[in-house]
């Protein structure tokens, strides 16, 4: 087993490291913590933060790559997540099958024990394979699995929360029931812990049910080549998260530097930078992406030898897509930063610093930069959901991520033609849309809370 570090993995870990550094830094500075206290005090903020973290955990697990049989070129690149869900990945059927079905979608010629050949729906290899007569037993089996999964999840929750509630009860001298009520329902203090715990509980129970069901059935059916759709949807999380975050991250240094340079120095520097971003933003985004991806395809076709494994090739294309998306979207941030810097440079404390003889670079880094960071943060959070949605659209135009890579866009793109079939194949679409909707909705709601917390006009993040 050899660990593999793809480019996007590296950038993701750099991003996580950056967030960790920021948290460590913010812990000791009260003015940095204040807006986050507002976020923590909001029920919506806490609930969506839990959901987003669940996505992030899966995405990070899926970013720890390794090659199981040493570093041979032909070896598949797997991730820790693949290893954890092992069965789900290996349970391949022949072709489509509906969610929870025990039979294949298409009829086949099956040889009966007495030698005759019948056209019938063959049983699935994995879905409902443990049942002898699925028609009668399936309902009971599904109910049993739901019960088992939910029961196990509730036991886990009890093991986590009962000791906590017991300690609270003993500390405050109240009954155990009152302590539980305080944990899950009634909010005490500034932080919206009940929203956190409730969302956590819902998440754990649904995860338990899904795990119990996925062990015996294809919860979201299988796709054209028989791969489990639930597995694909989970694998797509990493792609969605990377597109949503890395895109803003890769062009962030350029946007920051150019934005505050243009705003602070004005004159010909300002003219030049304005010219640069007006030119870039005047090219329609989709066309620029299309042109760049076309060029990448030509380049990859010419230099096929340089991309030894499928995973590396797909990864490079993902990274390239992030960069191109970044190039088309950094101009808005740059314009915002320039405007804010124009305002800041006239404030008294910046003038005082200049009067004391502090040099330009020092003013920029000590006085301007910390005061525009809230704009950067808000725009990162606000852009995220739009980028996740854009990925699906780009995949439809064939200029998205590599077709071999798991992504919601690719799932939708390959499934939409199957809607014409009878009976229709709807489950790939449904799975992709549901996973995308939950992520984007959580991100949108979270972004609203963050924006409220940082918006100086509302004066909220001060309490």
């Amino acid at each position, binding site marked *: 087993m050899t660990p593999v570090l793809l480019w996007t993995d590296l950038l993701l870990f750099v991003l996580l490291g950056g967030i960790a550094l920021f948290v460590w830094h913010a812990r000791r500075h009260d003015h940095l913590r204040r807006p986050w206290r507002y976020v923590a005090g909001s029920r919506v903020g806490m609930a969506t933060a839990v959901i987003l973290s669940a996505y992030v955990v899966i995405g990070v697990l899926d970013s720890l790559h390794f090659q199981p049989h040493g570093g041979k070129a032909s070896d598949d690149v797997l991730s820790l997540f693949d290893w954890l869900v092992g069965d789900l990945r290996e349970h391949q059927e022949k072709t489509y099958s509906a969610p929870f079905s025990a039979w294949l979608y298409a009829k086949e010629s099956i040889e009966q024990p007495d030698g005759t050949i019948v056209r019938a729906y063959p049983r699935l290899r994995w879905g409902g394979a443990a049942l002898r007569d699925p028609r009668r037993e399936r309902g009971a089996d599904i109910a049993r699995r739901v019960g088992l999964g939910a029961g196990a999840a509730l036991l886990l929750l009890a093991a986590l929360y009962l000791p906590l509630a017991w300690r609270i009860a003993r500390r405050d001298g109240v009954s155990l029931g009152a302590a539980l009520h305080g944990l899950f329902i009634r909010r005490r203090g500034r932080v919206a812990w009940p929203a956190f715990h409730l969302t956590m509980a819902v998440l754990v129970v649904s995860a338990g049910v899904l795990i119990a069901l996925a062990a015996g059935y294809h919860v979201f059916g299988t796709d054209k080549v028989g791969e489990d759709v639930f597995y694909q949807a989970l694998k797509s999380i990493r792609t969605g998260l990377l597109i949503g975050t890395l895109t803003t991250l890769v062009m962030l240094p350029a946007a920051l530097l150019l934005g505050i340079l243009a705003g602070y120095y004005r004159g010909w520097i300002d003219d030049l930078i304005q*010219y*640069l971003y*007006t*030119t*870039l*933003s*005047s*090219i*329609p985004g*989709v*066309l*620029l992406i*299309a*042109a*760049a991806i*076309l*060029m990448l395809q*030509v*380049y990859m*076709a*010419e230099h096929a030898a340089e991309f030894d494994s499928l995973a590396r090739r797909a990864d490079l294309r993902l990274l390239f897509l992030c960069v191109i998306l970044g190039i088309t979207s950094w101009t808005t941030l740059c314009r915002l930063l320039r405007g804010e810097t124009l305002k800041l440079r006239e404030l008294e404390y910046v003038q005082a610093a200049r009067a004391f003889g502090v040099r330009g670079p020092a003013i920029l880094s000590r006085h301007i930069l910390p005061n525009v960071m809230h704009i950067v943060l808000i725009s990162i959070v606000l852009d995220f*959901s739009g980028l996740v*949605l854009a990925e*699906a*659209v780009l995949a*439809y*135009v*064939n*200029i998205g991520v590599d077709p071999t890579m798991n992504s919601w866009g690719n799932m*939708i793109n390959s499934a*939409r033609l199957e*809607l014409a079939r009878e009976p229709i194949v709807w489950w790939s*679409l449904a799975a992709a*849309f549901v996973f*995308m*909707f939950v992520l*984007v*909705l959580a991100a*949108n*709601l979270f972004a*609203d809370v963050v924006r409220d917390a940082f918006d100086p006009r509302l004066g909220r993040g001060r309490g």
Partner: protein
Amino acid sequence: MMAYIVRRALYAIPILIGVNIITFVLFFVLNSPDDMARLHLGTKHVTPEAISAWKHEHGYDKPLLFNARRDGIEALTDTIFFRNSARLFAFDFGLSDSGRDIGHDIAQRMWPSLAIAVPTLLVGLAINITLALMLALFRATYLDFWGVVIAVAMMSISSLFYIIGGQFLLGKLLHLVPISGYDTGAAAWKFLVLPVIVGVISGIGSGVRWYRTLFLEEIGKDYVRTARAKGLGEMRLMFAHVLRNALIPILTGVVVILPLLFMGSLLVESFFGIPGLGSYTIDAINRQDFAIVRSMVFLGSVMYILGLILTDVSYTLVDPRVRLS
């Protein structure tokens, strides 16, 4: 006013030159014409003669920027840059890689694009403003709260879902309208209904939320409080003062996208099989027709800059406080 417009139009020229250089670098410097020829001719059994024949046919066999073999002005004009990129400035798009006249195609295909984009914009605007005004009128009530929740949920749904869902529900289950296709003249209306409905619905979420914010911002201003203190009724206040003042940012936001309307919507057009400029672009991307993509990039940039100029002009027309300098 006129002087301002002329100055802005002149200012657009360096930007368009920049756009041209970027596309030129993307299409000809990073990838040599040889690569493009090989892509079009396929990878197998390609002789050097076939490649040079393809390059000659499409005019890609000339030097990039400077032709040393010609004299005088010809040294600059008989190059790939001049023949393929510079002449875009005269809106002379030339021939596509498959030999069709791009300018003619664009002129023909802009009408279906407009036939979808204009109704979508107008109906969407009317619905969004009405809904947003209603939420602002009932602000801080349950109606407002759930309205915003629904708007955020609608924003979070992929536009692909609206398209596929609309086609499935109206086209396949209810058989009300054809799923996709197009017809000439007035017979096209039944093909236009579904794309327009889908376009309007997919825009409601973000539109209502944005307009509601604009209305609320206006309601919070001092003159509204003064008007209310004078005893003005809530309805009259909303329609006579708030709506009229909030229309300024709404209108200018619409003006900026007006020129881009005729570029069409890539997604809607190709899903519904409408022969507009959006599906033209997608087809070109899929067929890897560089000449068309290049022309559309240029055209899109021109339209974007036109939109910016129109926005500034419209500001002075609707808001007497703004003076162009």
